[in-house]
């Protein structure tokens, strides 16, 4: 006598579970999960191993960045922007003070523009290194990640020499920089420009034609060009889908108009294309750094005292009356610099996409409203679209290739 028939006879399906949807399996993914890197949450509906639907949820790192922006002055808030997209803080610093300077109408000195360009591009390299490294890590290529992280340490070292902090730099100031670039830093960046292509080649050799990696990323998470524009994708995610928008070319801020570089695009729109675009962007960034580094203009890094935003140097303070007054006024708590009662939006091409700030000035040194336009939110919102129909193991590949940084996502 067999057991099986009697068993099937006793099992009765409940009334509710007869629809096909009731056989779907719900899987909670995050907010604390190794492959989410930070704090994201996904609720996946699975049919076997196939993802039928995904419900992304965010807010597990919402710390009130925009509210705190209404209470810190334009110079103080730069410390908070460091902690926004914390894998490329320099880019955030540049974005924030770019927005403030657009609101104030400040034209930077040529030297400051070039230095900011260099650090923004170094930040892009370090961001892409970590992002691609994490994609490699999630798809099983640990060595690739270590190669990337080693070069990140070199960039950390450059930043530390530059401003004293490894990666919460707070390097920019309104109308200038916290300190000038020293020859030692220039020398370190020069060494980096020389040595980095070798590592990049090694990394590409490790992963770009690696069969496992290609199989796991090619054709996974495809985003079409129309969808990319409709869903507000920017940066490498949009460029991997064939959108040619790059603010460095389209709205050349800082000194980008002076350099020869290319906008890297792909048309496939899958995880592999996003990986390739990032790899290629690192080369282009390196080209920009190399060009900028050999032509840093001489002169001051801060704007003059007539702009009344950057602190004048000690020589001016002690020898001229304008310098003394300017220094005094900037140091006083209720004076500071004048901000128009106006509103502006200014964005830069951050490593992740268009990172902009919508600022409302009300005459004070503190913003009335500091809205950040984070690229990650829009990228995370399109996640269900990208993952539908793929398998559970593709979730990490897609998440990694979107490069979602929770602190920027939630703010």
């Amino acid at each position, binding site marked *: 006598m067999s057991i099986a028939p009697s068993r099937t006879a006793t099992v009765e399906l409940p009334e509710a579970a007869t629809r096909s949807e009731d056989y779907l399996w719900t899987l909670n993914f995050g907010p604390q999960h190794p492959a989410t890197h930070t704090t994201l949450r996904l609720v996946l509906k699975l049919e076997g191993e196939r993802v039928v639907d995904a419900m992304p949820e965010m*807010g597990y790192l919402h710390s009130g960045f925009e509210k*705190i922006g209404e*209470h810190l002055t334009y110079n103080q808030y730069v410390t908070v922007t460091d902690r926004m997209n914390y894998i490329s803080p320099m880019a955030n610093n540049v974005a924030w003070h770019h927005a403030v300077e657009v609101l104030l109408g400040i*034209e930077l000195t040529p030297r400051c523009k070039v230095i900011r360009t260099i650090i923004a591009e170094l930040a892009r390299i370090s961001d892409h290194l970590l992002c691609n490294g994490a994609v490699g890590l999630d798809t099983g290529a640990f060595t690739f990640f270590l190669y990337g992280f080693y070069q990140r340490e070199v960039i950390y070292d450059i930043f530390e020499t530059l401003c004293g902090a490894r990666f919460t730099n707070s390097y920019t100031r309104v109308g200038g920089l916290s300190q000038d670039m020293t020859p030692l830093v220039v020398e370190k960046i020069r060494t980096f420009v020389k040595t980095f292509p070798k590592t990049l080649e090694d990394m590409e050799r490790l992963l770009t034609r690696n069969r496992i990696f290609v199989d796991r990323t090619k054709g996974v998470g495809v985003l079409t060009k129309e969808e990319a*524009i409709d869903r507000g994708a920017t940066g490498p995610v949009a460029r991997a889908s064939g959108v040619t928008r790059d603010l460095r070319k389209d709205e050349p801020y800082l000194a980008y108009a002076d350099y020869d570089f290319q906008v890297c695009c792909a048309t496939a729109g899958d995880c592999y294309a996003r990986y390739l675009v990032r790899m290629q962007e690192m080369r282009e960034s390196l080209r920009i750094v190399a060009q900028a580094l050999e032509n840093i203009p001489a002169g001051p890094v801060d704007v003059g005292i007539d702009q009344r935003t950057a602190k004048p140097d000690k020589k001016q303070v002690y020898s001229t009356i304008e310098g003394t007054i300017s220094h005094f006024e900037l140091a006083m708590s209720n004076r500071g610099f004048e901000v128009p009662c106006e509103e502006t*939006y200014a964005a830069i091409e951050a490593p992740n996409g268009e990172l902009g700030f919508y600022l409302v000035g009300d005459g004070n040194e503190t913003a009335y409203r500091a809205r950040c336009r984070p690229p990650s939110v*829009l990228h995370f919102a*399109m996640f269900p679209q990208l993952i539908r129909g793929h398998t559970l193991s593709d979730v990490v590949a897609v998440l990694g290739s979107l490069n979602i940084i929770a602190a920027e996502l*939630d703010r």
Partner: protein
Amino acid sequence: MPFIPPPVDDVLAEVNGRFGPLESSLFRGQTRLIVPEARAFEVLEFLKEIGFDLLVDVSCVDYLEYRDPPMQCPSASGHRYGLVYLLAATATNQRLTIRVFVDDPDPTVASVVPLWKAANWLEREVWDLFGIRFTGHPDLRRLVMPEEFTAHPLRKDYPLQGRGERHNFPVITRDRS
């Protein structure tokens, strides 16, 4: 100035020709167009048709404690909330800011999710942090704050440190864990 975006005079002329004269202003090369709340959706729909295909951002400003009329526009003063729609045209690189002003007690505006899918989470965030209701939104839930939260923290009458919600949790001590 570092960079002046391409002018949008032609767009303004077209919009004004279709919807009657709308107030607009220019600051640092950025054009802001004030649209009455009732016509917001059709103006945005028209703008999308004529090439503004990228919705960059949807956000909001609470003008509760603001001294001057926002953006020096007389018609904007007196309102409490000003919604900001940042549009961009990927073909021409033009940018345009649309402002829609709404007021208490029930600030409501038509959702633009049917036009741009990007608006979905951006509008949820505005609902969460400012409490502005978007009619026609497919899934208007809180985005960043916990679901049980009742306040809208980016409003100006909500204190920076909150009202004690952040400490309303059970304590786990060593001998109980």
